């Protein structure tokens, strides 16, 4: 090795160590910062003397369901003359939501409405809110410790999953294999839906449940699951996607695999592209909740709790099954999401 090369090699090595440690440190931070730009879609509406501000913390921002909850809540708050704001993280992440809850509690709001990311992990931060005298209203999910929240407003996920399962069974003539695409393990809301679906399918002797694939809320991954299984498993006749991103991904995946219509697709929740997919029949149906109603109910419950009135512990909102045939009827239309608060 020449002197020149040796010099290079030493330099290279020094740099290597330096870069190496930077990389390691960076990768640690990245997971923390990756999706944490929190969005405030605050809408201050009037000022109120006695009643404090209501803050809604969604599971993540940019999700049509949560955005429509926020719209419904914002409208109800405006009507009641109460301040309202939304604070959330861009990713569905327990750690990020914990940080946001802590920050919101520190700002001393009158009440918190929250769509929890985890039924166990969120107990501690929300208990702190309760201890600070801030009533907590759950939207679309309860904690395992039911003493923390004043009330939980939630559609029955098991019933919704069964609704989807029975509808899919009917679509495929009650025979063949079906699979589920879900976000991740650990969410009680999703688990109720997928459990309800599996329960419904088990009633049909000629149907086989292939199990669940997890997309981590990644549309591209859901598309890949749908295209892969539909091309490689000739027995597959139907797919149940438990959330909007997965439904949108599955529509794309089936289209790319040329299986649209051959493999039936049933989703949960809606969005503009999902409605468009119902219109052109690339989607066979979807379970629709009533997020606007849940948001409004959340605000009235929060106001009642702040005034010291009694609030019903479990409140539910109805669901419907939207199909290409019925989605334009008034009965179904009122359930369709509206993330931009246009109504």
């Amino acid at each position, binding site marked *: 090795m020449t002197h*020149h*090369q040796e010099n*290079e*090699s030493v*330099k*290279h090595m020094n*740099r*290597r160590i330096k*870069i*190496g440690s*930077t*990389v390691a440190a*960076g990768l640690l*931070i*990245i997971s923390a*910062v*990756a*999706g944490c*730009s929190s*969005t405030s*879609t605050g809408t201050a509406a009037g000022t109120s003397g006695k009643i404090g501000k209501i803050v809604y913390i969604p599971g*993540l*921002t*940019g*999700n*049509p369901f949560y*955005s429509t909850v926020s719209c419904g809540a914002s409208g109800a708050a405006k009507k009641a003359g109460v301040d309202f704001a939304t604070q959330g993280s*861009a*990713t569905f992440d327990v750690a990020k939501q914990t940080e946001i809850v802590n920050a919101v509690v520190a700002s001393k709001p009158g009440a918190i409405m929250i769509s929890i990311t985890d039924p166990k992990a969120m107990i501690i931060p929300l208990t702190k809110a309760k201890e600070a005298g801030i009533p907590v209203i759950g939207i679309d999910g309860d904690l395992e410790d039911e003493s923390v929240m004043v009330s939980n407003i939630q559609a029955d996920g098991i019933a919704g999953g069964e609704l989807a399962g029975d509808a899919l069974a009917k679509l495929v003539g009650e025979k063949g294999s079906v699979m589920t695409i879900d976000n991740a393990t650990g969410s009680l809301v999703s688990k109720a839906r997928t459990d309800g679906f599996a329960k419904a399918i088990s009633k049909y002797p000629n149907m086989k449940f*292939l199990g669940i*694939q*997890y997309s*981590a*809320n*990644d*549309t*591209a*991954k859901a*598309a*890949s*699951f749908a*295209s*892969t*299984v539909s*091309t*490689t498993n000739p027995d597959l006749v139907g797919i149940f996607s438990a959330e909007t*991103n997965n439904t*949108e*991904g599955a529509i*794309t*995946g089936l*289209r*790319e*695999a*040329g299986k649209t219509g051959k493999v039936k697709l049933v989703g949960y929740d809606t*969005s*503009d*592209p999902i409605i468009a997919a119902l219109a052109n029949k690339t989607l066979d149906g979807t379970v629709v909740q009533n997020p606007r109603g849940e948001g409004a109910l959340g605000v009235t419950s929060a106001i009642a709790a702040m005034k010291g009135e009694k609030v019903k512990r479990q409140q539910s909102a109805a669901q419907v099954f939207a199909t290409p045939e019925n989605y334009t009827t008034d009965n179904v239309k009122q359930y369709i999401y509206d*993330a*931009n608060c246009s109504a």
Partner: protein
Amino acid sequence: MSNIDELKTASTDATAPTASSTATPLDTVGATMSPRSRTIRRMTSSSPFYMSIVLLVLIAVFSIVAPGAFPSIANARNIITDASTLMVMAVGMTFVMVAAGFDLSIGSVLVFGGVCGSMAMTWMGTDNIGTVLVGLLVSMLGGLAWGLFNGFVITRLRVPALIATLGSLGAALGVAQIFTNGNDVRDVPLTLIHISTASFLGLSYLFWVALVVVIIGALVLRTTKFGRHTYIVGSNEEAARRAGINVRRQLMMLYAISGTLAGLAGMMSLTRFATTTIGGHSQDALTVITGVVLGGTSLYGGIGTILGTVIGIFIPAVLQNGFVVMNIQPFWQQVAIGLILIGAVFIDQLKRRARDRA
């Protein structure tokens, strides 16, 4: 020029595309071999070579275990379509990493590009191929803007690439959310949806776009002065500066390329899903970096090829597909990719150590 050639053989031995007559440590070992066997030896000891064996083994194993399902044209088409968007970003990442840089921002820049493109198309209000081309241009310009921002912060403000692009990872997503109020943009022109369902020679247009990007990227990196300068900057920035290379300008252009390709990927994603999928890209940078590193690009710069990156991107894609086909619990896929990544870098380190001893 001779100055640059000398530097190149001194520090980028593993990447020199042709068998050079100047003695590098590996060549010294093979001094008695014919030039041809030396070339073969160098080829077979390269990371892309190992990784293509890994890829072939994976394909073989899945084909044997699931003979009726995995090895089919339809399934290969699935894998290729899935990998297209990541591939475009991976080409940009390879350029940046060969120059010893890093770009964590691409997932957010993708979202930003897609949001800009879709907003431009909505604003125009028309629905023809011209609308889509304007959307594409705006999307790529949006990506370019973040690339130039990254380049500026890194070369002029001297913020380390890791931190600079970590910052823009958050900032680009934040700006995209400010533009859209946090809601996915969902009204895209019908022309775009028609493009997503159309195909050429049986393959989606997304694949052909990715293929063109890969070919141009490979040619530029391997055959042009710009490509050579990229390797030299990555091997030894100081030496590159002394050899008269404008290092700042070079890095600026590399980050601009990475940003622009992420903007292009944003338009591809928009075409595929007809929505901006704001929440779905926080892991893109890590997925792409995993592919690039699997393909033999060194984290320390100076080493890497586009061919290697193509192989590296396909390893996780094939693994995921195979596991789904076999209906294996999906969590195993992450375990497998993690271990293969660590194994690949370990082999790379062993080779470096052997070479440093020689």
